[in-house]
């Protein structure tokens, strides 16, 4: 061992396995997700995630970030100190900060989701950009949504860039992934109405009643929502446009629609506190 490091060789089998975890297939096989970065790790730990292992480069990390070491080993996770070159090999960021954790894969089963009395859910159809999905998860977190469901294609919720963009929200907001047909029947069985957000929606956003049990569906920017969603939706809503842009970014649209629903819910609660 050099300087108290556990691994200094990039050829170490554990390092090779860690590098292989960049591939979705390998992550699925091992049922794990990667969390890189101090801030992301901090949020994941706060959301109750228990890492299996933590790879740490003391040369890269800031001294005031050491609190994480104690928190992680207190949870029973193995802490592996590696050299700077080894860390550079396992990191997927351009300028790594010396923290990378292997955590259990996020559960994405539809059936396990628990819906409260008047749930608010988000459905993302064909939204694949990690930055957009991450921002949508953060909106769902802020709004107290019951879940975010990805459909067609079934998103890799463990994508490291998505984990990063979500700032840990992927661990605090329940997520699921399933084909559209299944999601639609699952929602119908539970009495959850569907509001499809689409530029040619029938009802202006502010005029639609979004205060009941509701799933808000958004589609990818270029294709929008498929007919499966717009035709089976209980209401199709459009966000009023005042300017010249033909459309909003999907995460911005989702935030606007979700917050309209949040507003209606709060107003309804305040008007009839006894209910």
């Amino acid at each position: 061992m050099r300087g108290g490091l556990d691994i200094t060789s990039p050829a170490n089998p554990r390092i090779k396995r860690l590098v292989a975890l960049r591939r979705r297939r390998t992550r699925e096989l091992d049922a794990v997700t990667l969390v890189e970065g101090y801030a992301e790790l901090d949020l994941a730990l706060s959301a109750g995630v228990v890492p299996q292992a933590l790879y740490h480069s003391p040369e890269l990390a800031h001294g005031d970030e050491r609190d994480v070491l104690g928190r992680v080993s207190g949870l029973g996770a193995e802490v592996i100190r590696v050299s700077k070159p080894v860390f550079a090999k396992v990191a997927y960021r351009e300028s790594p900060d010396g923290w990378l954790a292997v955590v259990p894969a996020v559960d994405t089963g539809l059936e396990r989701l628990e819906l409260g009395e008047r749930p608010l859910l988000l459905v993302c159809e064909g939204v694949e950009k990690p930055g957009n999905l991450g921002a949508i998860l953060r909106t769902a977190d802020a709004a107290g949504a019951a879940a975010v469901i990805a459909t067609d294609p079934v998103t890799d919720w463990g994508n490291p860039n998505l984990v990063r963009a979500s700032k840990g929200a992927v661990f605090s907001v329940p997520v699921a992934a399933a084909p559209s047909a299944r999601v639609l029947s699952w929602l119908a069985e539970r009495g959850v109405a569907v509001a499809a957000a689409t530029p040619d929606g029938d009802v202006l956003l502010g005029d639609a009643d979004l205060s009941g049990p509701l799933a808000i569906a958004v589609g990818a920017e270029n294709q929008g929502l498929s007919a499966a969603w717009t035709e089976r939706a209980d209401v199709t809503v459009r966000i009023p446009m005042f300017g010249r842009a033909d459309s909003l970014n999907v995460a911005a649209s989702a935030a606007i629609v979700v917050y309209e629903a949040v507003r209606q819910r709060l107003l309804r609660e305040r008007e009839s506190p006894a209910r």
Partner: protein
Amino acid sequence: MTETISSAANPVIKRVRQLADRKHRRRQGAFVVAGRQPVWRAVEAGWEIDTLIAAPDLLAGSAAAAMVAEQEDRGVRVAYVSAELFGRIGSREGPSGVAAIVRSRLAGLDELPTGAGAVFTALHQVGNPGNLGTIIRTVDATGGAGVITVGDSTDPFGPAAVKASMGSLFAVPVAHAPDADTFFGWAAARGVEVVATSGHAPTEHWRAAYRPPLAVLFGAEGSGLPEPVLRRAGTGVRIPMTGTAESLNLAAAVAVILYEVRRPPG
């Protein structure tokens, strides 16, 4: 006749690469935009095109090809490149076949239209270029009067910001105030009310009365607005959040507030 560039060592291609760097953008007063719709919007809005870069093989017969030919007739310099080379300078989401080197144009604070209905979006020390671009796009969609970056900010002409703005950068005036003093001075002189956003403001954003001309001021993600800046604003509003504090992404927060500002009364 025009010749097709296929060498990455060509000076135009080298310039495109250089302009990914803020230092070079500042020095040359230019930036790069890629994609048919964004380039078309730059041309339509009358931005000065330094050079158009077109891959004829990728554009064959398209409206974009006609646009390039028309610009060339008007005297705009056009560099024709091979599809292979364009693929290397274009974005990852598939090459569109047209890009442009455009002259940067920041609006001066004094040029901003502060008329009766004007709604500005001011961003204090915005650091993420993708967020800035998305915000410019949202401001365009909500008919906003402009974006003001306050203090140390990311460059609206950087590649990630330009890409995220989807061409809205050419329609929305973007001005820069070097510090909060300059920003508040401008607002006071023009009679623009400043509404600050903060996780601690007592008023929920849907309960505030928005009376344009106004500027909604947002802080950086994570840190928010510094206390001294917050105190100088006339009003403060808060987006209610049930999750982790500051969990909303900045561009999402801007979308939520701008939509609320635009909500018809009643």
